[in-house]
């Protein structure tokens, strides 16, 4: 070999090693295997607490709780429009192997071999302690339990080591489904009690940082605001062993980067991208995009019916005819929403919720209604929205502002920061605003109780009071509890008709839950809480 040839071959090797450096981070087959059993989820924000009973646990925290704790019962899966969807009416045991519903109580037999993640057995004592905790800690968990008439620790009775009875306070159709939501999770009581203090008898500080459940996954590492790492609990008895061994959930604040990570194939799943990105990703066809309407959820325009000018039903109706519905669907949602307007004039009211109104954009009619209401001279008011969801809210308000101006309602847009939004809603003084409400329990009377009932809950943002409406809602709840279907149907139709006639709030659309996944990911399930259930996912 002469010198020149040597130089040639040397530079060739140099080039080869040069490219070797640029190879992806997966070097060994072991690592590739790990990648195959690992799910990488990217989202904008992460949990602030791993325990849903905690003070101020945020929505991402619900996802952590759902996957790390078991409940006594859970929902079966069914299929709806090609997506696996929880079955509202079919329940099955998770920690319970048997559920026996009596007249004024329900009895659960626990699976005998179920253990917590630290190996100790799940007993009736743990169940009682956990349910007691849910109804006692106050705040959101207690409130959610109350929604199913679960209010007092005395309702939860230990029969023997593996049997628990829940006594009903009153007949309520929501009691049993309320035991399958995220809140009544079963906690390792001995472990938590060991870590409780006098000031913190329920051990909330401990469960904030540590998972103490019997669920399919446990959190092995949590760096708040950065990542959460879940490892599978191989002795899980709540259902078939999940395929995914490890879930890495990383917080990536920039939506553009989340999309880039998906498109490059580095992330497996993301679910909070702007609608425009979802539509483009869907068209590109490189990823699986699932869009499911929020169960029992509606984005709406609300009006304060206590104060002028929106105390006048004609003005409210005028607004309902002035909304640029189609434009909102196209330009704001890019079609990713289910219209809740424009039902044909002869459509019959269904026993269902949400369902579309008969309103459509008709400015001439709106103007006429304004004149009839005595506001031909016009109105000055503010139109408010939550900046936390500005991506959707802001364009809706701008489009609405434009149309309202044409019927003489001059609006100033009032942007309210996320931290302040609920305070402002609670004051119940905002004259005109857009907001979204959705309930975990998918029953019309549940939605109406919170949003339209005269007991004036936080969600009755309009301060709407109507004796007739209260009669319908109370009637429907009583009929549901006693199983009187005919009365129930009449009452539900009655409340829907009245809500659409009085229009204290104008439904716009049912928002979609959008999830983008790599093509090799299967097993997405839609749950009432709209967060991801890791247990059914598969890769490859």
């Amino acid at each position, binding site marked *: 070999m002469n010198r020149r040839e040597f130089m040639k071959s040397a530079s060739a090797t140099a080039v080869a090693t040069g490219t070797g450096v640029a190879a992806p981070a997966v070097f060994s087959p072991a690592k590739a295997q790990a990648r195959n059993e690992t799910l990488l989820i990217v989202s904008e924000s992460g949990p*602030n607490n791993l325990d849903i009973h905690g003070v101020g646990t945020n*929505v991402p925290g619900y996802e952590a709780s759902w996957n790390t704790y078991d409940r006594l019962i859970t929902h079966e899966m069914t299929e709806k429009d090609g997506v696996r969807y929880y079955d509202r009416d079919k329940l099955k045991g998770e920690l319970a192997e048997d559920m026996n519903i009596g007249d004024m109580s329900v009895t659960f037999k626990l699976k005998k071999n179920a253990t917590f993640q630290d190996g100790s057995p799940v007993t009736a004592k743990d169940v009682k302690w956990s349910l007691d905790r849910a109804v006692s800690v106050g705040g*959101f968990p207690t409130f959610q339990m109350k929604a199913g008439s679960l209010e007092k620790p005395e309702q939860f009775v230990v029969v023997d080591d593996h049997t628990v009875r829940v006594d009903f306070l009153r007949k309520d159709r929501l009691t049993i489904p309320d035991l399958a939501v995220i809140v009544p999770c079963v906690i390792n009581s001995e472990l938590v009690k060991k870590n409780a203090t006098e000031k913190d008898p329920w051990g909330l500080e401990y469960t904030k940082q540590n998972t103490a459940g019997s669920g399919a996954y446990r959190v092995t590492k949590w760096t708040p605001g950065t990542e959460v790492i879940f490892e599978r609990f191989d002795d899980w008895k709540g259902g078939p062993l999940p395929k995914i061994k490890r879930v890495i959930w990383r917080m*990536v604040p*920039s939506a553009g*980067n989340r999309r880039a990570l998906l498109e*490059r194939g580095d*992330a497996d799943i993301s679910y909070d991208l702007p609608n425009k990105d979802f539509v483009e990703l869907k068209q590109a066809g490189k990823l699986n995009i699932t869009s499911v309407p929020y169960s029992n959820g509606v984005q709406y325009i609300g009006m304060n019916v206590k104060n002028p000018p929106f105390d006048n039903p004609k003005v409210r109706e005028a607004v309902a005819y002035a909304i640029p519905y189609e434009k909102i669907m196209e330009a704001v949602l890019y079609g990713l929403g289910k219209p809740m307007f424009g039902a044909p004039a002869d459509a019959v009211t269904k026993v269902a919720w949400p369902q579309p109104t008969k309103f459509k954009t008709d400015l001439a009619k709106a103007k006429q209604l304004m004149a009839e209401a005595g506001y031909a001279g016009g109105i000055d008011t503010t139109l408010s929205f939550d900046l936390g969801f500005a991506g959707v809210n802001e364009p809706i308000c701008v489009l609405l502002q434009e149309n309202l101006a044409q019927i003489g309602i001059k609006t100033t847009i009032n942007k309210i920061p996320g931290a302040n939004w*609920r305070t402002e809603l609670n004051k119940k003084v905002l004259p005109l605003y857009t907001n979204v409400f959705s309930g975990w329990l998918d029953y019309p009377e549940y939605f109406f109780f919170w949003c339209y009932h005269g007991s004036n809950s*936080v969600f009755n943002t309009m301060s709407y009071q109507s004796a007739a409406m209260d009669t319908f809602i109370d009637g429907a709840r009583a009929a549901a509890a006693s199983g009187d279907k005919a009365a129930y149907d009449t009452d539900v139709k009655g409340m829907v008709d009245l809500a659409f006639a009085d229009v204290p709030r104008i439904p716009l659309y049912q928002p979609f839950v959008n999830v983008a996944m790599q093509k090799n990911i299967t097993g997405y399930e839609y749950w009432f809480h709209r967060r991801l259930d890791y247990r059914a996912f598969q890769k490859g």
Partner: protein
Amino acid sequence: MLKLLGSRLATAVPSLIGVVIVTFLLTRVLPGDTAAYFAGPAATPQAIAEIRTKLGLDKPLPVQFADYVSALAKGDLGSSLSTGQPVATEIAARLPASAELTLAGLVLALLIAVPFGIMAAVRQGSWIDHACRIITTAGVSLPVFFTGLLLVYVFYFKLGWAPAPLGRLDVFFSAPETVTGFYLIDSLIARDFETFRAALAQLAVPAITLAIFALAPIARMTRASMLAVLSSEFVRTAKAAGLTDYTVIITYAFRNAMLPVVTTLGMVFSFLLGANVLVEKVFAWPGIGSYAVEALITSDYAPVQGFVLAMAILYVILNLLIDLAYGIIDPRARSEA
């Protein structure tokens, strides 16, 4: 020297007390109700009141302030509601991430800007001077989040050279054992070169983003102060004495031109900690800036107070270091103090 140190530290105390009071008041004046926010979407007024009591927000302001100060004296900065962690641990964990990124950006900027500034001053009016002007103008006019996103788009999305913008390490690496909190240094201490490479790869693009931003003031200042020094008499004398260009420019001129550069450096560093907020957002960097912004958005008082306090202390230390550096660079500065 010790006297200087002592007097400097003494003047810092009142400003720190001021910072404590002002941040406390400012966070309370912010619109937004912490309790209502954290009570969740389904809260009743009663639930909100319960949370308010739990957080101690129902007490009168002076009592809250006294609580805060007495906790502070014990080194307790309170707990963040949005991440659920004690603020002190969070800041301790996140500050190294921000510092590593900022320092990397600053060093990179220095390596480019100082030679560039010197060259531009020495060859005033040449193409290199014009290039210096163009680059520095571009550097200051492009907002960091834009350059950041652009670099991600080009180097990660299009070319695939850079790793995924997922923070300090690829998801399949685990962090080296914490010694300094700087991954580059810790991985070297642990002799884990694979992690070092991975951390360096993650650091590269965000550091370049910051460097582009920091380039401009440093290069401009180097050029301006070099120009002033180069036209002074001792340089002319040195040249006349037949010293080499290198000795004249580096040994004589540059050392004398360094003082304003060091001052600018201090300013740029503090500036970068601010610019960091956006870079951290773009690169999902678990630093202190993104932490503070998140807290601010959710009216989470404790982290905001902790952040401002930590920054104030950092600035005090930084100014002290710069003052000390003056003394080393220029003996005259020492005697003046």
